[in-house]
């Protein structure tokens, strides 16, 4: 197993720049997820690591050894594909055996390893069946078996779960994670599904339009998103974002949005505001950080850390079992999405009061989209 480094990688298809100046590192034994919407360049990166596509510029190293000049077969990489990419004219066992057959591994040793994997992936029942008729879950397990049968330096997972049904997806997700940890596999996972990335990966690299946005643990991305894209992309339901204008008068700072004004002590917000080039900023609040209480409060009040209370009515409720996602509308028409413990008592039209702790508010520059930090975090 190797440590993989990406050093200023570019990928161009004609005039299209699919990957722009990406540097990344995946230490031995780690699972790194590349997360982003389709077309963000994550699959191009994977194909360049695998060697099935050329790197336009930059270098990829395994244990500090450059590999970009090596053909795919010489890199000792295994890959698990979205569409499984099993050879339809072979049985399950033949598919798993394929990498060993290609390498001329002695029959007895090969059989031992194949049996071990078939056992580990519970594929005994389908062992001698043609793969084309099998369920997606079984096919993907075979594909994983084929990837692991020959001790690769690196395992690449390209959207491995996206064609599976709900329960198979969750089951295989934990199975892959378990295998990855017990075998201490260095692996890269490409996915557009944040729950997959967060559940499986040690670190997540978020990409958009070919540009790396942020790398960090799922926790880091969630708590301290580096910019508006990450803030909006990570988290379900997504973060509430509001463009505000900042007014500073004496030792008070007032944020205005759509007829709402929230008043803060200057020492609370001062360091974010000082980072702004203009009076425009964007604030972000996670739905679960919105405090909702039943009531009919009239106006807001602020004091230091505990922020305003704003009256709002329930516009829509999405019950999710253990939580309810409320879409709330303030008197001024602003929409606030809140996640409260469920099942809750609210119905459509319920009057509520909402408030947010200042410590939970994320600040971004509207102009650059970059984070200015969060009061509660270490900004």
């Amino acid at each position, binding site marked *: 197993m190797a440590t993989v480094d990406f050093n200023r990688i570019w990928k161009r298809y004609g005039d299209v720049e699919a990957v722009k100046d990406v540097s990344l590192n995946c230490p031995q034994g780690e699972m790194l997820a590349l997360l982003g919407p389709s077309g963000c360049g994550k699959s191009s990166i994977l194909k360049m690591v695998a060697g099935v596509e050329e790197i336009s510029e930059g270098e990829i190293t395994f244990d500090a050894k450059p590999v970009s000049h090596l053909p795919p077969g010489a890199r000792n990489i295994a*890959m698990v594909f979205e569409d499984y990419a099993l*050879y339809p004219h072979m049985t399950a066992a033949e598919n798993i055996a394929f990498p060993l057959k290609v390498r001329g591994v002695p029959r007895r040793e090969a059989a031992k390893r194949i049996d071990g994997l078939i056992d580990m992936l519970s594929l005994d029942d389908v062992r001698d069946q043609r793969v084309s008729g099998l369920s997606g879950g079984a096919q993907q397990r075979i594909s994983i078996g084929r990837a692991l049968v020959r001790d690769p330096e690196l395992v690449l997972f390209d959207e491995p779960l996206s064609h599976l049904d709900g329960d198979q997806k969750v089951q295989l997700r934990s199975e892959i994670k378990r295998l990855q940890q017990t075998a201490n596999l260095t692996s890269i996972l490409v996915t557009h599904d944040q729950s997959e990335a967060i559940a499986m990966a040690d670190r997540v690299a978020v990409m958009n339009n070919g540009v790396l946005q942020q790398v960090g643990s799922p926790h880091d991305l969630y708590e301290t998103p580096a910019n508006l894209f990450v803030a909006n992309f990570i988290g379900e339901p997504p973060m509430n974002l509001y463009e505000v204008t900042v007014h500073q008068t004496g030792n008070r700072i007032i944020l205005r949005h759509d007829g709402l004004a929230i008043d803060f002590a200057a020492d609370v917000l001062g360091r974010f505001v000082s980072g702004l080039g203009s009076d425009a900023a964007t604030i972000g609040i996670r739905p679960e950080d919105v405090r909702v209480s039943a009531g009919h409060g009239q106006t807001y009040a602020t004091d230091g850390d505990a922020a305003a209370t704003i009256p709002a009515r329930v516009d829509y409720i999405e019950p999710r079992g253990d939580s309810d996602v409320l879409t709330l509308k303030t008197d001024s028409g602003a929409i606030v999405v809140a996640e409260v413990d469920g099942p809750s008592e609210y119905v459509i039209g319920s009057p509520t009061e909402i408030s947010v702790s200042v410590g939970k508010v994320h600040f971004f520059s509207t102009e650059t989209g970059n984070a200015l930090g969060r009061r509660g975090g270490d900004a």
Partner: protein
Amino acid sequence: MQRTLTARDAFRRKTLWTALVVAAAAFILFPVIWMIGMMVKPTDIMFARPTEWLFVPTLEHFNYVFEQKFHHYLLTSVLLGLISTLLVVIIGTPAAYSFARFEMRGKDDLFLFVLASRMAPPVCLVIPYYLIFARIDLLDTFIGLTLAYMTFNLSFYIWVLRSFCRDLPAELEDAARLEGWSRVQIFRRIVLPLLRNGIVATSVLCFIFAWNEFLFAFMLGGKAVKTLPVAIPTLITTQGVRWGEMAVVGMVALAPVLIAVFFLQRHIVRGLTMGAVKG
């Protein structure tokens, strides 16, 4: 009540449908059956009015056909069809795969160029072929006709097989490349087995084209190399048309086509629709 009514409706509809299909089949099959009768019908009652349905079968037509060395023409047709189709498969399969898989400058133009040879009416092509073949001494030779059929079928074959190739997931090949296989190995061991159905269906169509073809065979061959379609009109003689013999030879000419379509119709339809929809 409602239920019995619908059941009866369905029965009626099915009966009507069956009757229609039988009628259509009879309409299409009647000439073939009539021809089978003609093969063994004595010449003197061939066109007797009213039709004589009962007669002693005769082999006179078969004897004449063999006397006239029609079995040579049959052999020529078979060999010409098989060899030209084999060449098409050998050259066309890698070409179709390359067109489907690899990017290169001017690929679409080249593909259109390949296809263009199929778009022109054959009559337009036969004249330049004649001139070229005359210059390089390929007129009325087996090799010449084989080459002509090969060229003509190649564009069609590449066109249809390219869409079969496009249907193969590229990930399959990526997976094999990660195991260290070369392009050639992947082509032989993974692509070819998966393309088998497409290759069979498309090459059968090529064979049938070569088998049925008249114009090229007549213009570029005709004496030393005579195919069945060219030989059949010789049965129209100055003493009249030899109908019985024509039925015998016609049946032989029809047989491979019928057999191929019967066994491969599903593949052929799939091959054609794929080419049509995705080409």
